[in-house]
């Protein structure tokens, strides 16, 4: 059996991979549906898009479920804290996630104008809402959110829904919407008919620029945003007791990891490069490569978030020592070992199967 420390690290990487899988598959769907009103589509074009995405939709939702399940199995306490704190946010994400496959499957089962326009609106909301709210969630994770662990490990969330809508988190939310829009627009540029292709191209280029500006702004803000740092000695193979450490907070501490490991700068830099590359590729009608570049940017953006916060998974801004890290909130060694040996191969199979399904839909 592997060391507890290595296991925690590997499972954290695995969680990242599942998050990337979710972002790439579900993100595409969200992006396409949130673009629907801006593409001036004719009814046959709408039908075509729905027909293209319908077979993929259930598989995409399974990525969402898989990412949540891996978080639950690997860091049960983090799962408990995050889902109980952001309960109302997740309620909306979940409703959207349920509506979308049904919309794709059944949008075209009636020809009534009202029925169709109703579904189109529902699909738009079911794309925009989770794209924005998951961004908002990421922003709040970076800022830290107000939860407290009592000595018997009962979790209390002391914030309010309104408090989650702070300027920094809204910026991250906008950034996430722009990136998903760009990614989806490149997809439509690749697969749409001739006139759709042209409109998607313009949209993709605009969205990429918007994303790069917003991503840069987030980066600049983070240098002054209060980050978190464990001040007591970290015991990477210690018991999972989050209350046994001290945490401090300070401006720019989220950049700590980059100072210790300058190679990590490659991640955010590559996001920029991939974004710029995608813009150029869109311009010269290399839509396939543009989409790949944007997928890379999306994956790297998710990883940048994870690496900046490392080893924190859920920092608390009112009870600093309650913050949860990958070391002191993980599942037991046996559980992590099982998770790694099962979910690792499963990720590979899932990735290949998803790729195959997208391919046959081409």
């Amino acid at each position, binding site marked *: 059996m592997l060391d507890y420390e290595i296991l925690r690290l590997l499972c954290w990487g695995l969680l990242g991979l599942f998050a990337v899988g979710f972002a790439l598959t579900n993100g595409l769907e969200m992006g396409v549906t949130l673009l629907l009103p801006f593409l001036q589509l004719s009814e046959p074009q709408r039908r075509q898009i729905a027909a293209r995405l319908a077979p993929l939709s259930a598989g995409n939702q*399974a990525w969402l479920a898989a990412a949540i399940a891996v978080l639950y199995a690997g860091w049960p306490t983090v799962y408990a804290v995050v889902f109980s704190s952001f309960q109302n946010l997740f309620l909306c994400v979940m409703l959207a996630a349920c509506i979308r496959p049904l919309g794709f499957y059944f949008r075209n089962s009636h020809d009534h104008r009202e029925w169709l326009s109703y579904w189109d609106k529902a699909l738009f909301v079911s794309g925009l809402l989770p794209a924005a709210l998951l961004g908002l969630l990421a922003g709040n994770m970076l800022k830290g959110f107000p939860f407290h662990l009592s000595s018997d490990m009962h979790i209390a969330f002391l914030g309010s829904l309104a408090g989650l809508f702070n300027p920094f988190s809204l910026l991250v939310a906008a950034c996430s919407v722009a990136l998903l829009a760009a990614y989806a627009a490149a997809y439509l540029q690749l697969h749409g008919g001739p006139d759709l292709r042209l409109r998607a191209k313009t949209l993709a280029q605009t969205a990429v620029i918007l994303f790069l500006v917003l991503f840069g702004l987030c980066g600049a803000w983070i240098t002054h945003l209060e980050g978190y740092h464990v001040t007591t000695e970290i015991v990477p193979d210690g018991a999972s007791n989050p209350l046994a450490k001290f945490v401090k907070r300070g401006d720019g501490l989220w950049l700590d990891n980059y100072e210790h490991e300058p190679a990590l700068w490659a991640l955010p830099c590559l996001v920029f490069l991939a974004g710029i590359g995608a813009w150029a590729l869109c311009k010269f009608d290399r839509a396939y490569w543009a989409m790949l570049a944007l997928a890379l940017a999306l994956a790297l953006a998710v990883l940048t978030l994870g690496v900046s916060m490392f080893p924190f998974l859920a920092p608390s801004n009112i009870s600093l020592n309650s913050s949860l890290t990958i070391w002191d909130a993980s599942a037991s060694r046996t559980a992590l070992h099982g998770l790694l040996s099962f979910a690792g191969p499963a990720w590979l199979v899932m990735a290949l199967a998803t790729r195959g399904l997208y391919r046959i839909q081409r």
Partner: protein
Amino acid sequence: MELSRSQFAINAVQHFLFVPLTVGLSFFLLVLEAWGLAGGRSDYQPLCRFWGKLFGLSFGLSLASSLAMLFQFGGNWSYFAHYAGDAFAGPVVVGVLAGLFTAANGLGWMLYGWDKLGKWYHLLSTCAVCLGCHLILFGFSAASGWMQYPVGAEFDPQALRMELVDWHAVLTNPVALAKFAHSLLSAYAVAAGFVLAISAYYRLRSAETALSEPSYCMSAGLGLLAIVATLLLGDAGIYKQSSFQRSKLMAINGLPADDILAQNRQRIDNGIQAYAMLQQLRDDNRQPELLAGFAAAKPDLGYGLLLKRWHDTVVDAGPAQIDLAAQASLPPAAPLYWGHKAMVLFGVLALLTFLTAGLGAVTGRRQPWLLKSAMYALPATWLASGSGWFISEFGDQPWIVVDVLPTWLAVSALGPSDLALGLAVYGLAYSGLLSLAILLAMQIVKQGTAELALPVEESGDA
């Protein structure tokens, strides 16, 4: 607490409505397609497509309710998620990663792959969907079986939670396996009842004969086999393992459980000791005798926690409070008694339906009363399976994890307004989804096999 439970109940009801139907239908579809292919019949495809459409709808709702469950465990039951997640999440991961993903991906191929895949490859995709659905049910049964009979996990005082020590024990939990077999068979019966009712509806109107004829016969046969097996296998296997399961069995049979009550009182006393020692351990007292004492009393810690409802500090609880806790440690007798009666009643009703339908199929008779009874018996299998779930889940009270964690400790510390909002949204969303589903199902049935392809495919590929 009550709000959390109602919210969870809405969710669970939805789950129990659609998961059995989905699992059962996936098997029915596999049998149908394999039978058509093996017999070299060209007319099986429209059948598979028609039932596949209904399956897609049911799968969508199961997926939605499974996702909602995943959100619920963290949102509403955060202390449970922390306290038991280490062991509980294992089967969940298996169900989601292996089952849900296989089924969801296979679904894409199965519903839309008719023109793209060869016959045998299509059968393979149907196979994948069926396998995935069964794995989901297995993961779900293993997780829920663990809550009733928590094997393979040990309490860890430092992390203050149950920690997994033996994967194998969790996945081969005898209660979970018995539960899986029982609910799988009843899922087949639910799906057969569903198919039978729709086929009878068509036959009654003499419509869609090409569809209703084979479907009617197959579902009658499958249903008969499934329901007989369910009744023969019974649910006794689920109740053998622990004293709590035995007390549940007593309640079902309307017998008094005085000896178990006395035993539980003893366990509560023991639990108080365990709780007191745990507090010292939490204060970093690491004396060997304390550790040994705690290790011995640990299995009864849950009974100490049971007291928290009446006496938060546990350690100095009075006899009256211990009495209350002991009374509460037994599952509620009356609902279990009547729930079980209802399950058996509906099960027998379903058996009669399948029997008469089977006779009708064999003799080729089409009396309207026979068809009507098959139609109106549609809820019977569902109610039988639903009451089965009810005794299984409600019968766990006062525990969320039997002998380990009381339900009232497991909820999140959410304000009533948050919970009320959540409940309202859930209620609205679910009634909305449910009515949408019924509307769409009725439309699919009305369309019959007239439009064979799913409407989204009409315009061809993009």
